[in-house]
């Protein structure tokens, strides 16, 4: 229990727009333990990024966390004021974005940006801060870090920039890193390099990691646990083996069937009909029911969290329990 770095309970983040309320995140619960990697999977608009932003406290109006607890090492982040949040952000909790230029300032040299980050939370000399920055660049596999410190972001390739962003996230050896699709824009060989670094960090430093992605294949190789989001809700959680080998929720099942894999060469993919619903004024009940082959009248009500097996949670009235057999 005490080993949980992050425990999210019943979190809801809603956006109050002129057109209506968008329940981007609606009553979700999950946890990440020290040194573990949680894969948060979902399609665009499923609320996975907003979940990340909620945890690190970067939800802007008209968005607001409307209910729930975010326990970070036992402390509820939703109760902190702005100053306390700033103390944690970038220090104990860090975020890596899909576009590294969201982290990097294009007109400042890398060393300026990194030293600034170190000094924001630690009172050390500039020399020490520089040393730490250089070590962090070396750790993420940037060749000749001493020279690269004096470069500007535009002098790096996309993969290298993402490494710099990761190095900045690592400067304070955070307890939790939230990575929002950090390798989606990268090429396969570069993505593998980044994944290798991240894996090593989780193992060696004990950082807990939330890896947000739409790519089940990346999660399959990287994560320990998986949480599947659909239309603002977590519909299924469990270990990667359990969820990918024996999916219980029809959506997870459909998602896995949609991924082209080597066994199914040339055959039709098992597609999910229809498309993801708009989150604006989403009606009550299971949001997947219009696309679900198992849906019936019961699905018009909200399915509660259930715990079909040890270590798994599920939100479905008609789970594919035959998968367990």
């Amino acid at each position, binding site marked *: 229990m005490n080993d949980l770095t992050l425990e999210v309970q019943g979190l809801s983040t809603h956006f109050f727009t002129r057109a209506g309320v968008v329940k981007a995140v609606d009553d979700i619960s999950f946890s990440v333990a020290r040194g573990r990697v949680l894969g948060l999977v979902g399609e665009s608009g499923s609320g996975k990024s907003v979940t990340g932003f909620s945890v690190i406290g970067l939800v802007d109006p008209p968005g607001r966390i409307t209910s729930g607890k975010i326990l970070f090492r036992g402390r509820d982040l939703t109760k902190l004021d702005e100053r306390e949040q700033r103390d944690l952000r970038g220090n104990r909790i860090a975020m890596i974005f899909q576009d590294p230029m969201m982290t990097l300032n294009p007109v400042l040299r890398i060393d300026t940006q990194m030293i600034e980050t170190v000094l924001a939370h630690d009172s050390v000399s500039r020399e020490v801060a520089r040393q730490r920055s250089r070590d962090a660049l070396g750790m993420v596999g940037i060749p000749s870090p001493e020279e690269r410190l004096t470069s500007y972001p535009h002098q790096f390739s996309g993969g290298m920039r993402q490494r710099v962003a990761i190095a900045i996230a690592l400067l304070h050896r955070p307890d939790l890193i939230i990575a929002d699709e950090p390798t989606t824009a990268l090429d396969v*060989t*570069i993505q593998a390099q980044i994944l290798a670094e991240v894996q090593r960090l989780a193992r060696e430093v004990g950082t807990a990691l939330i890896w947000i992605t739409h790519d089940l294949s990346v999660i*399959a190789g990287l994560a320990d646990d998986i949480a599947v989001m659909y239309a603002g809700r977590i519909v299924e959680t469990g270990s990667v083996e359990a969820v990918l080998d024996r999916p219980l929720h029809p959506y997870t099942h459909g998602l896995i069937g949609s991924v082209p894999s080597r066994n199914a060469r040339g055959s039709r993919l098992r597609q999910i009909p229809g498309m993801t619903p708009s989150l604006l004024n989403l009606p009550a009940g299971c949001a997947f029911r219009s696309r679900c082959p198992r849906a019936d009248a019961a699905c018009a009500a909200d399915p509660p969290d259930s715990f079909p097996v040890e270590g798994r949670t599920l939100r479905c009235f008609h789970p594919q329990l035959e998968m367990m057999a």
Partner: protein
Amino acid sequence: MSGGPPAVTAASVPVIELKGISKRFGKTLDIAARMTQSARRAMGSKVEEPVVKAVDRVDLTINRGEVVGLVGESGCGKSTLGRMVAGIMPPSDGTVLFEGRDIRTFGSDEARRAKLKVQMIFQDPYASLNPRLRVDEIVGEAPRVHKLIGPEGFDAYVDAQFNRAGLDPAYKRRYPHQFSGGQRQRIGIARALAVQPEFLVCDEAVAALDVSIQAQILNLFMDLREQLDLTYLFISHDLGVVEHLSDRVAIMYLGRIVEEAAAEEIFSRPNHPYTQALLAEVPRIDTRKRQFTAIKGEIPSPINPPSGCHFHPRCPHAMPVCRERAPVLETVAPGHRSACHLNTQ
């Protein structure tokens, strides 16, 4: 089989044959730059213009009814190659044969007909549709201009194209922004099919789509192939997608094709070290928590590619000869060609 007279039966002649095709992009110099250049030249120094060889002497044959996957990382020239195949970008060097004949010998009528036979589907379903046209106009414009349909048949024809691409014709008076990404991609497909092509060039056509939508579009491509007897050049960086769809696969690295073989062959017995590394890196849904080991180094800039074999700085098997000479594609097994010096050792 190649270069036959135009009268050969259609079945034996490849739809598209590329011979030593290259594409170079250079900067067009303004007058000041040209003057400094000629001044430098006058002073006896050597002047080299910065030229990107996006595609470098590529041979590729695509037979009728085949799906050829073209794989490579960003900047390797795969999109440029696709555009040259589709006839919307002229090559700097080399020959494109369409149904066995050099496209440069075509008269204007013939060239237009050949162009209609090859259609392209683009990656970005947002940028590739004119936002100011209603979607029935987008789909029906080309067939009307090319007189495939008269004014009276317009509506029925557009409806048929919509149905074939899995769209509801009831929405045909809407604008592109009123559709989701997957539906827009279907509009792009309906537009391409409306001129009755035989050959589709799909440039990352599913890369921008969510997984569940991607599966729908891939299924649509496969259905259309059966119904319409289409030939595809399927360009993608996603090996999973290419493996699923293709009969034959060509792997590109920095402007050159480094390996080409039947899909099953290349995925089970990759020959080129780059292909091997690429296949090892692909995240797969059936692998579990694994050690990622990466190919070292970055993808070099195509402006200044490494000498000899472009892959040698990253290759675990690099030998002195790799730095000096570029390997050529050689047959390593029936129907399997690879460009690596290891094969000629």
